[in-house]
């Protein structure tokens, strides 16, 4: 837990520094520095999702990914500068009634929440946030590509320890009070892809063919017993598959106490 302690200290010293500089006028405010993005080299890999239009070898273009999920403090700064995303002002079609309802007020959070990952945030709001950082939500494949890493390997998916760590998080009940961001960086330097929150991806609603439950002749892959197993390339990938199942149960305006997000930026050199 060393990384955890040091991140606490880091956050505290940042705040102390800025307070000393007299830069904070509001009684309750949290330091927000520009988010760190990590350069991710492109590459080819095998996804767990063998859909008809997805070849097994998925090509990922170079990009930069946020080192950490977006925190409450960061999202608070966002809604202050973009009031249309405040919970008291947001349009219902973009966020359901429980949007940000864990916050103390429309524009206030508790000290403990500052470094917690933002949750109870809709896909629309996450998308708008990323735009404010000149970024976008990652695609499922981009997220999966980076999340395949452990601390030392870029693709650790064959390591039972990697899978067990994911499952370890599944087996902990959620009390609506996530731990702080700042876990150990993976081989790319990206933190908290596993073990903290689910994360929105840009194409969450395209992960499966049919969303029509009444279409019994062509049922959703994950909604029936046998089909779930069929859709897995490798049965060991079920830990990742459960993340897909989770995302596919949501609609864009939905929020839950365990879904947050991070953003990516396409690489400037390769994307004209």
């Amino acid at each position, binding site marked *: 837990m060393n990384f955890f302690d040091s991140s606490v200290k880091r956050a505290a010293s940042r705040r102390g520094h800025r307070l000393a500089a007299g830069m904070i006028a509001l009684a309750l405010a949290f330091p927000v520095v520009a988010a760190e993005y990590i350069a991710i080299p492109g590459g080819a890999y095998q996804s767990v999702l063998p859909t008809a239009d997805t070849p097994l070898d998925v090509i990922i273009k170079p990009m930069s990914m946020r080192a950490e999920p977006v925190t409450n403090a960061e999202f608070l700064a966002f809604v202050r500068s973009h009031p249309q995303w405040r919970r008291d002002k947001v349009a219902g079609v973009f966020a359901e009634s429980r949007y940000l309802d864990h916050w103390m007020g429309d524009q206030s959070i508790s000290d403990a929440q500052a470094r917690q990952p933002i949750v109870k945030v809709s896909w629309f709001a996450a998308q708008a946030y990323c735009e404010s950082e000149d970024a976008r939500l990652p695609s499922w494949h981009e997220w999966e590509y980076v999340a395949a890493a452990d601390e030392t390997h870029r693709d650790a998916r064959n390591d039972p320890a990697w899978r067990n760590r994911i499952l370890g998080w599944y087996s902990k009940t959620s009390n609506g009070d996530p731990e702080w961001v700042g876990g150990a960086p993976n081989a790319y330097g990206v933190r908290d892809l596993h073990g903290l929150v689910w994360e929105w991806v840009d194409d969450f609603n395209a992960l499966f063919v049919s969303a029509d439950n009444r279409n*019994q002749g062509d049922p959703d892959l994950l*909604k029936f017993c046998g089909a779930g197993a069929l859709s897995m390339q490798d049965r060991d990938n079920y830990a990742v598959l459960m993340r897909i199942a989770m995302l596919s149960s949501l609609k864009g305006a939905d929020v839950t106490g365990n879904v947050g997000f991070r953003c990516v930026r396409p690489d400037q050199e390769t994307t004209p």
Partner: protein
Amino acid sequence: MKPVMIAIALSALLLGACSSETQAPSKTALAASEKVDTGGSAKGDFGPPQGEPIHAILTSPPEVPPATGRTAPAKVIVELEVRELEMEISEGSTYTFWTFGGTVPGSFIRVRQGDTVEFHLKNHPDSKMPHNIDLHGVTGPGGGASSSFTAPGHESQFTFKALNHGLFVYHCATAPVGMHIANGMYGMILVEPPEGLPPVDHEYYVMQGDFYTVGKYREKGLQAFDMQKAIDENPTYVLFNGSEGALINEKALKARTGEHVRLFMGNGGPNLVSSFHVIGEIFDKVWYEGGTHYQENVQTTLIPSGGAMMADFHVEVPGSYVLVDHSIFRAFNKGALAILKVDGEEDKAIYSGKEVDSVYLGDKAVSLEPVTEARDAAVSGTLTLEQQIAAGKAHYTGTCSVCHQDNGEGLAGVFPPLAKSDFLSKDPEAAIHYVLNGLVGKITVNGKEYDSVMPPMSQLNNDEIANILTYVFNSWGNDDGRVSAEQVGKVRKETPRSEGAAH
């Protein structure tokens, strides 16, 4: 076209109104031996629901909701909430169960054949996972699963007509299905036949399930799910009602002599088939597979994974009856044990003494050589401590180890340990009393409370009891000690007891 339509509408009305005609075939549930065809789902639609909608009473195991008592089809609203909860799987060990209604198995649902069920599945906002429900009592693709895929903090609704009567399992069918079931996501729905079920004094709800943890059996702390063990079908625990302690001691099922007991018994799996047996009891009737017809006078009944059965039996003799999966290592090494405690007056004409079961004696091939040797030595007056211990061990293996185990450690919460037992060492003399006269009621052994029944073992002779106790006092790290046949004889003379009990 029109006359045909009217004819159909009329017949539908008639079906709804003329209940005696449409429901007659189901009377066969009461006269099952005739095996008359009930007509199944084709004869299960008694027309549209009548009267105000009814909110179903849901119960936590082992309780069962009261009979519907209805004579006409109703609209029944069922509201079931999914909770992901860390709960005890064994003493000191916890597991994150995914539950229907906060318990494993999930809440018991009771409706009547022909009822229209409006089903609401709610997934608690704190849930990490999406869930759905497949009820085996639903006619339609997916059994409701496709219509109930529900994200955390959301609610789904679908409606079905209960066309077939019987006892049905329900379970979550979200991928990976096996994991959702292995985490406890199953329960049962009873669809009563139109005439209801024969009345009994007690109805209880029990389900078996197999559990797969990374840690070993009874390893302390929060245990994680082990997918490989699940694929290998090698469970860490096989449990009744989701916990080793679910149905023992003060939580045991209860009845009194002379009463009729009904078990609604299901098997959630995900993998194992249950050889369900109640030690010392015979099922008078088993509605095998939860269906319409019953078999009579059954010792052990198979319950498939994702299947169920109903059993009725009359209890005559007081004592503790042990519910087991008779694939017996599951019972004694993986937790598949529950207790039905029957209180009441003894009826010696039916059973001379209190007993657990004698079946297991056949498993113990006992060499009687040391017994013979000890007997000869006793006669000639040269009996040594070693001879006593050897003979005592043979008797112990044949008689005592069924409950107290070969290693003397008993079964936590059910049968007290003899190894390093503070209860025994407190008063070694009293041990002779316990063997001769049995022991009933609450005792505390090594800090743990036990509330079960040890039958009197007075059929053993003085030599045998002396040898057994001498073996016990000289084994498993107990302080040494020696009991003589004379000591046993003295106690036997002082206490009146029934002869011929046990084994």
